[in-house]
């Protein structure tokens, strides 16, 4: 007999999901919400409460994607209510950030990974999201596509473009500074 919401299998599923995904979902959602961890907690709580109401047999396979997708949708609802979400600006952010970069601003950190992750903040929101899903949460292209609603090809393209940008900016960052002109 199929499990139903409110059964013991739901409880086990939710407990296990909390253990496995609680903090990564909060981290993912907080990034979508501009670093607002408190609201991210509310969104993640709502997602888990929704999981309590779901049929465990339906969500068990692909639970991670399901939870990420629910958190993502809910976060966008929150942003939409705040009227802070404007898809038209997402492509412009990239161009704006390029001009603000200067090697001297990032001189303290020489560790490549720290530098790379610092530069991730300057990517467009779309690119940031797929980078985090791939590298922070280790999700395959297919799952990222399910969560974001993009095609697998689009995900690949976004990641490729993001990494190419990061590579180029890192090269600019790590290039030795030009010598000072002689007095």
């Amino acid at each position, binding site marked *: *007999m199929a499990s*139903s919401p*409110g*059964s*013991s299998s*739901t*409880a086990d*599923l*939710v*407990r296990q999901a*909390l253990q496995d995904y*609680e*903090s*990564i979902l*909060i*981290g*993912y959602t*907080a990034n979508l919400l501009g670093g607002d*961890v*408190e*609201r*991210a*907690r*509310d969104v*993640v*709580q709502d997602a*888990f*409460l929704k*999981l*309590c*109401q779901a049929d465990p047999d339906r969500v068990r396979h692909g639970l991670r994607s399901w939870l990420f997708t629910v958190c993502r949708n809910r976060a966008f*609802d*929150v942003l939409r*209510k*705040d009227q802070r979400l404007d898809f038209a600006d997402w492509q412009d952010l990239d161009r704006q950030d390029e001009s603000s970069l200067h090697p001297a601003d990032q001189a303290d950190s020489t*560790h*490549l*990974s*720290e530098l*790379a*992750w610092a530069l991730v903040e300057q990517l467009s929101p779309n690119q940031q999201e797929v*980078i985090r899903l*791939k*590298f*922070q949460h280790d999700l*395959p*292209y297919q799952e990222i596509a399910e969560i974001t609603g993009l095609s697998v*090809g689009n995900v*690949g*393209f976004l*990641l*490729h473009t993001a*990494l*190419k940008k*990061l*590579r180029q900016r*890192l090269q600019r960052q790590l290039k030795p500074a030009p010598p000072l002109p002689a007095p």
Partner: protein
Amino acid sequence: MTAPRDPTDITALVLDELSAEAAAALRHQLDADPELESIHQQTTVLVHAMQQGAPTPSDLLHPAQRQRILHSAAPAPRRALPSGKTTPPALRPVRSAWPRRLSQLAALLTVGGVCFWIGHSQLVRPSVATNQKSPALDATNSATASPKPPPATANRPALAQTDLPPAPPPPSAAPRPVQTAPLATESPTDLALTASPARTPEVAARPPTDPPAFKLHTHLAAHPFTDAARAPKLDLPLEPTRIRPRIKPPSADNLIAAKPAPRSTDPAPPPAPRPPLYIHAWRADTASCPWDSELRLLRITVQLPADQAAALGNSTQYPFEIDFDPNNVRRFRLLGSSDQPAPELRQAGRLTYWFEYSPNGALRDRALHPGRRVASIRIPNVRFTTTPVGPFDDGLLTAEDRGIEWTQARSDFRLEAARLGLALLLQGSSSTGNLNADLILKILPPASGPLKPERDRLANALRQLATLVGSH
């Protein structure tokens, strides 16, 4: 440099996203092209750096949030199942030839089941008999232990009968449309919206899928808007007997009246102390008001087990305190309440209260403010049927306004708001903003999920009403 067919393939190769054949072909191409190989190596270094240095999320939910999730996920006891939704286990198909021992076991279980059912029906009868008081219920009233139903006693008045009280009405395949009672001229207006489908013997064995009848009261006339700064607290009476299962009394023809009891000369016994009140759960939801953009709605739902002395005994009122926060609420009023009786004794019923309130201060902005306290709800000395877990005060329920619009509210919230809106519309109240039949149709949740039958019934009723008054 010979570019690969798809420039994203190099990244996909580094991230292990290519198929084996595509990866082999690309490696062959990289071996032949030093420039491509350089890009491949740079990408590999970058990917490894990012994988190693990926920030590890460490934030966790607050303990109260975690407990709320675990509490929602906990398997519900049988009597805490949503009222009206009983799904008996699927019956196994009967085999043509049973082993002898299995036959004996089946016979034993059948006899035991019949005895239990007879005993259970005996337990229900005290609420059906109007002039007889079961000593067992009196004993339960004075009990302070668990809310389990009282056991059968030998002193219960005997009702010889050939017809046991029937079970709560199960639905038929084609339920009747919703019927609305005529409007009352006195206030508060009681509007009975019943949805009791016809009972036929052939469907008696089917599991019920329709919710039981509920009763909706509107309280606009009796409870106008109150200034929260002057009088933030509202004391309402909570009447658990309103969720008592509605059981059709047996036909009088089949009853043999008991001999009248001799009049007692003893002084009247002192009134029994009020039994403790048990609840399964309660919740508070807020959302914007669909018919008035300046107001917001608050719904407080209390789920109670039907098999407790407080619900089965004499009608007793329990204090139900709602304390609005004047910092966040300017004025409020009780809009309506509804009772949803338990479909049977071992299930739960619900009492729901609806409020309208005018936000104060920052809540007037439409921005989302997580967790602004609207009201604190308390039932003094209430007991929970399940042990709550957590450091919070389980006797206090906080209603928080998160700035949710009614379009994003839960489906059951929207359905009940639509019912309430219809009741207010039929009442003809003048203080309900832009409320009309079209708006009520929009308030109804989407036609999917477990609420679909109820939702469709209400939508049909609205359309029929609109046709009746010639607006379609």
